[in-house]
C-alpha cells in the first residue's frame, strides 16, 4: 500500500503541474510532439502494424531472428525464447513497453515468444550499450514496443483468423474509435497450438512425435488517449494469460510439466510541450505470475512479483543546435516465491541527463546516469557518441559507453544459492559504424559496416562452487565480445513492382577471459549458445495487391553446455499476401510456409525444432470515416 501511495504521488506531482495547459476547447491546434533524445535513439524500425502485411501473426522472437537483430535461443516451438545480441545473454537485451522495462525482476529476462506483434503498433530497436539512457540491462541492445495513436475521426475494426500446422490457430482483432481529441484502441488476441510435430531425433532414427507441447495464450489490450492543448495523456493496459506445456527433451520419455504466465500491466503516461520544454512522465504497475508445475515430480513452483514504476523526463529543445534532457526513474518491486525464505523487495532509483548538439555535418551526444539499488550507488554510467557526415551519402558513427546489469531478485535471494552481495555486471563498450547510402527516383541502397568491442566484468553465473553441493550465483566471469556487422539494403521500383532486399552477416566473438573451474569454461572459449557466424537475407516483392516475401537465416555452429558442437542450420520461410477491398472493408488473405526445406535442427541441444509448417489466414478491416 505504501508503494501504491508513492506511485500516485510521483505520478500526480509530475502531471498536475502541467494539467492547466489542458484546454477544453474543441478547436485544438495540431500538436507536434518533438522527438526526444531517448526516442530518437530507438528510431530503427523493425516492424509496424500498418505496413507489415506479411507477418501479421508472428511474435517478437521470430521477428528479431528473421531481421537479423538477435540470435534467438529457442527451446522449441512455442517454448521459451530469449535473445542474445552481440554476444550478450538474455539479461542483456532490454525490452521496453511504452518506454518502461518489462523484464521480470526475478529472472531479469523476458520470454520473447510471449510477445505477439499484435501487442503493439510499432517496434524499434537500437543495438549496443545504452545503459546511460535506459539503465540496467541495456548492454546488448534495446527493443522498444510502442503504441501508435492517431487522433482522427475514424472508426475501424479488424478481425483476423488463421490456421496452421499442428493445431496452430490464432484469432485477433481490434476496435479503434475516437475523434481528434480522444482515441480508444481495444485489441485482443487468442492463440493456441498443439505443436505435436514429428522430428528426427538423429539421422537414421525413426521420426518421433513431440508431446506435451500445447500452448494457449490470451491477450487483451486497451489504450485510451486524450489530446491536450499542447500534449497528450494516455492510459495503457495489457492483460496476458498463457498456458504452456513443457515438452520432454529428445532423451526424456515423457513430460507432464507446464507453465502458467499471467501478467497485468497498467500504465499512465503524459507528454506536454510548453515552449522549448517537452515534459514526459510515466507511472505503471506490473503484476505478474509465473507458475511452474511438474506433476511427475510433485513440483509446484508458483511465483509472483509486483512492480511500481515511475519516470519523469524533461527535454529542452531549440537552444540553437542544442538539446538537453534530464530525467529520473523510480522502481519498487516485491516478489513472492517458494524459492525465497522471505518476500524480498527491492527499490531502484536513477537520475540521468543528456546533451545533444546537431551541426551541419556533425552530431554529438553525451549521456550520463547514476543509479541506486536499495539506496546503494551503482558506478556512474557515461556515454558519448558522434555522428559525422562529411558528405550526405556517407556517415560515420562512433559510440563509447559504460554499461551495467544489476543482479536479479533470484540472483540475490533464491534459496539455495542466492547471493545478496553480488555486484552489478559492468564494463565498457565501443563501436564504429560506417554507412553509405545512395538514392535516386527509383532505387535506394544502403550499405553499412559496424565494428564493436565490449568488456563486461563481474559476469554473474550460476554454478557449483568448491565445498558447496548446490548451485549458487557468483560474479565469476569476464567476457570480451567483439565483432563485425555488415548490412545491405536495397529498395527498387520497376513500374508497379516494388522490391526490397535486406541482407546481413554478423561475426561475433564473445569469449570468457577467465578460465573457470566450476562451471568448466576454458579461458578464451566462446560463450555457450553464441554463434560466431550468423547471416540473413529477406526479399520482399510487391505488385498492386500482391505481396511476397522470402526470409533466409543462417546460424553457425554453437557450443552447448551438454555437447560441444550444436550444428549450424539454414532456415527459409516464404510469406505471401493478397489484399482486396470493397468500399469500407479491406480484406487480406495471407499464407506462411516456415522451414521450407524441412531442416531438422536444434538451437538448444536435446530440444528439437519443427520441420516444414504452414499457416493460412484472413484478415478483415472495416473503416468508417466520420
Amino acid at each position, binding site marked *: 500500500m505504501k508503494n501504491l501511495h508513492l506511485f500516485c504521488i510521483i505520478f500526480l506531482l509530475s502531471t498536475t503541474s502541467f494539467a492547466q495547459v489542458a484546454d477544453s476547447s474543441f478547436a485544438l491546434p495540431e500538436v507536434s510532439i518533438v522527438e526526444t533524445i531517448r526516442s530518437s535513439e530507438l528510431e530503427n524500425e523493425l516492424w509496424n502494424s500498418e505496413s507489415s502485411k506479411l507477418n501479421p501473426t508472428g511474435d517478437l522472437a521470430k521477428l528479431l531472428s528473421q531481421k537479423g537483430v538477435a540470435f534467438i535461443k529457442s527451446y522449441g516451438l512455442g517454448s521459451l525464447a530469449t535473445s542474445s545480441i552481440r554476444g550478450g545473454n538474455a539479461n542483456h537485451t532490454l525490452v521496453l513497453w511504452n518506454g518502461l522495462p518489462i523484464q521480470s525482476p526475478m529472472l531479469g529476462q523476458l520470454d520473447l515468444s510471449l510477445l505477439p506483434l499484435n501487442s503493439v503498433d510499432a517496434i524499434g530497436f537500437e543495438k549496443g550499450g545504452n545503459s546511460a539512457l535506459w539503465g540496467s540491462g541495456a548492454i546488448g541492445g534495446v527493443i522498444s514496443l510502442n503504441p501508435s495513436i492517431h487522433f482522427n475521426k475514424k472508426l475501424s475494426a479488424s478481425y483476423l483468423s488463421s490456421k496452421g500446422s499442428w493445431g496452430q490457430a490464432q484469432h485477433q482483432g481490434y476496435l479503434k474509435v475516437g475523434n481528434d481529441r480522444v482515441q480508444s484502441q481495444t485489441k485482443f488476441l487468442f492463440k493456441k497450438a498443439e505443436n505435436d510435430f514429428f522430428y528426427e*531425433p*538423429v539421422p537414421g*532414427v525413426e521420426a518421433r512425435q513431440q508431446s506435451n507441447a500445447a500452448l494457449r495464450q490470451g491477450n487483451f489490450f486497451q489504450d485510451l488517449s486524450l489530446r491536450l492543448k499542447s500534449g497528450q495523456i494516455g492510459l495503457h493496459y495489457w492483460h496476458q494469460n498463457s498456458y504452456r506445456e*513443457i515438452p*520432454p*527433451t*529428445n*532423451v*526424456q*520419455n*515423457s*513430460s507432464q*510439466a507446464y507453465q502458467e504466465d499471467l501478467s497485468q500491466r497498467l500504465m499512465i503516461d503524459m507528454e506536454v510541450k510548453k515552449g522549448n520544454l517537452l515534459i514526459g512522465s510515466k507511472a505503471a504497475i506490473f503484476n505478474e505470475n509465473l507458475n511452474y508445475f*511438474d506433476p*511427475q*515430480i*510433485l*513440483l509446484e513452483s508458483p511465483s509472483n512479483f509486483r512492480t511500481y514504476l515511475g519516470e519523469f523526463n524533461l527535454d529542452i529543445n531549440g537552444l540553437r543546435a542544442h538539446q538537453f534532457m534530464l530525467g529520473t526513474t523510480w522502481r519498487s518491486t516485491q516478489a513472492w516465491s517458494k524459492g525465497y525464505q522471505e518476500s524480498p523487495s527491492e527499490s531502484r532509483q536513477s537520475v540521468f541527463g543528456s546533451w545533444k548538439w546537431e551541426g551541419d555535418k556533425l552530431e554529438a551526444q553525451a549521456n550520463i546516469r547514476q543509479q541506486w539499488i536499495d539506496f546503494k550507488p551503482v558506478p556512474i554510467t557515461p556515454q558519448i557518441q558522434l555522428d559525422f557526415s562529411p558528405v550526405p551519402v556517407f556517415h560515420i558513427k562512433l559510440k563509447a559507453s559504460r554499461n551495467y546489469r544489476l543482479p536479479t531478485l533470484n540472483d540475490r535471494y533464491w*534459496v*539455495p*544459492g542466492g547471493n545478496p552481495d553480488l555486484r552489478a555486471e559492468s564494463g565498457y563498450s565501443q563501436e564504429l559504424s560506417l554507412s553509405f547510402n545512395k538514392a535516386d527516383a527509383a532505387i535506394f541502397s544502403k550499405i553499412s559496416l559496424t565494428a564493436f568491442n565490449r568488456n563486461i566484468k563481474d559476469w554473474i553465473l550460476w*554454478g*557449483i562452487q*568448491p*565445498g*558447496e*553441493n*548446490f*548451485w549458487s550465483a557468483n560474479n565469476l566471469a569476464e567476457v570480451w565480445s567483439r565483432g563485425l556487422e555488415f548490412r545491405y539494403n536495397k529498395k527498387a521500383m520497376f513500374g508497379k513492382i516494388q522490391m526490397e532486399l535486406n541482407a546481413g552477416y554478423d561475426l561475433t566473438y564473445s569469449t570468457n577471459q577467465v578460465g573457470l*573451474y*566450476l*562451471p*568448466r*569454461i576454458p579461458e578464451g572459449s566462446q560463450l*555457450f549458445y553464441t554463434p560466431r557466424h550468423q547471416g540473413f537475407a529477406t526479399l520482399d516483392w510487391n505488385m498492386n495487391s500482391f505481396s511476397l516475401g522470402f526470409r533466409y537465416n543462417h546460424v553457425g555452429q554453437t557450443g552447448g*553446455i*551438454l555437447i560441444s558442437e550444436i550444428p549450424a542450420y539454414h532456415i527459409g520461410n516464404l510469406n505471401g499476401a493478397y489484399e482486396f477491398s470493397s468500399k469500407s472493408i479491406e480484406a487480406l488473405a495471407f499464407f506462411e510456409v516456415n522451414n521450407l526445406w524441412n531442416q531438422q535442427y536444434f538451437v538448444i541441444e*536435446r530440444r528439437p525444432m519443427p520441420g516444414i509448417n504452414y499457416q493460412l489466414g484472413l484478415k478483415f478491416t472495416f473503416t468508417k470515416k466520420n
Partner: protein
Amino acid sequence: MRQSLLLFILIFSLVQAQNLANFEDISLPQDSFLNGSQSNVNGYRSGNFFFPVTYDAPNFSWSGWSISNKTDTLTAGFTNQYSSITGGGFGGSSNYAISYGLNLTDFSQQANILKFEGDALGQPVRGFQITNSTYAYLSMKNGDQFAKRFGGVDGNDPDFFLLTIKGYFNGMLTADSVDFYLADYRFADNTQDYIVDEWTFVDLSSLGNVDSLSFSLNSSDTSSFGFNTPAYFCMDNLESATPSSNNPAFASERISLYPNPSRNFVMVSSSRSNSLDLSLWSVDGKLLMQKDNFLSGSKLNISDFPAGTYLLKVRDGDQVISKKINKF
C-alpha cells in the same frame, strides 16, 4: 555349560551386530528421513560405523549420508530424493542410508566418506548392499528436464553410472579401489544394459584393513556444470570382517547374482575367488549345465532355458553355495 553357551552366543551376536551397519538401530518415524537438519547433528552411527552429514541450514541443503525408511518407488525427481528403488532396506528391512554428494566428474572429486569405529576400526571390510535411489533410477530410466535417459536417443549411447569406493587406513589410501556400476549401458547387445534396481552385494574385501571409506560417483551424462545424473545411491548392511566370516550364512552372501530375475543372462560374482565351478539344476534335480573355472563377474547365459526357477550351485574354494535363479 548352558550358561557359557548362551554367553558365547550373546557376545558373538553383539560383536556381529557392532560390525554390521543395518541402520535399524537408528530410530525413525514411519516414512521419514534424517538428513542432518536436527541441531548439533553431524552424522549418524549404526553399529561401529559413523556416517557424516553436513546440513547447510540457510540453503536447506545437505550432503553426506541421510538415514531413511521411505518407500516411494514411483515418484520421479528431487522431491523424492530419500527413497530407494527397492522401496525399503535390504532383505525387507526398514531403514537404509542414502549417500548424496556432488561429485564433479573430471574436475573435482567431492567424495562422501564414512568412518569405522570401535571393534571395526582397522578391520578388513567385507562389503555392503547397494541399490539406486528412486530419484537416480527413474532419471536414468526415463530422463528428465536436466538428465538424459540412459542409452540416449537410439538406445546405443554407452552410458554408465559408476561408484568408486576407496579404503583408507591411518590416512593412507589402501592399494586397491572397487568399482561398482549402478547402471551400465556399455554392452554391444542393448538387452544386456541394466540399471540396478535390487539390493546387490558389493565386495570390498580387496580393500583390506581400513578405518574409513570414500565413495565417489561418476556418470557418462555430463555437462560443463558437472554430471547430470542425480548423485545418489542407497546403502544397507555394511559389514567389516569378523572371525565369523567363514560362517555359511556369510558364505552365501559372498556370491551375488545380478540381475535376478533375468531373461537372458546372470552375472555371477564372488567376493573371494576369481574362479568358480558352476552347475545349474532344475527344481526337479536335473543337471542342466556345468561350467568349471568360470570367471567371477562374468555372465552366465540362461537364454536357452524356459522361464522358471533354477538352482545354481557354486563351488567357491572349499565351500559349495546354492542360490536360486528366477528366469522370466
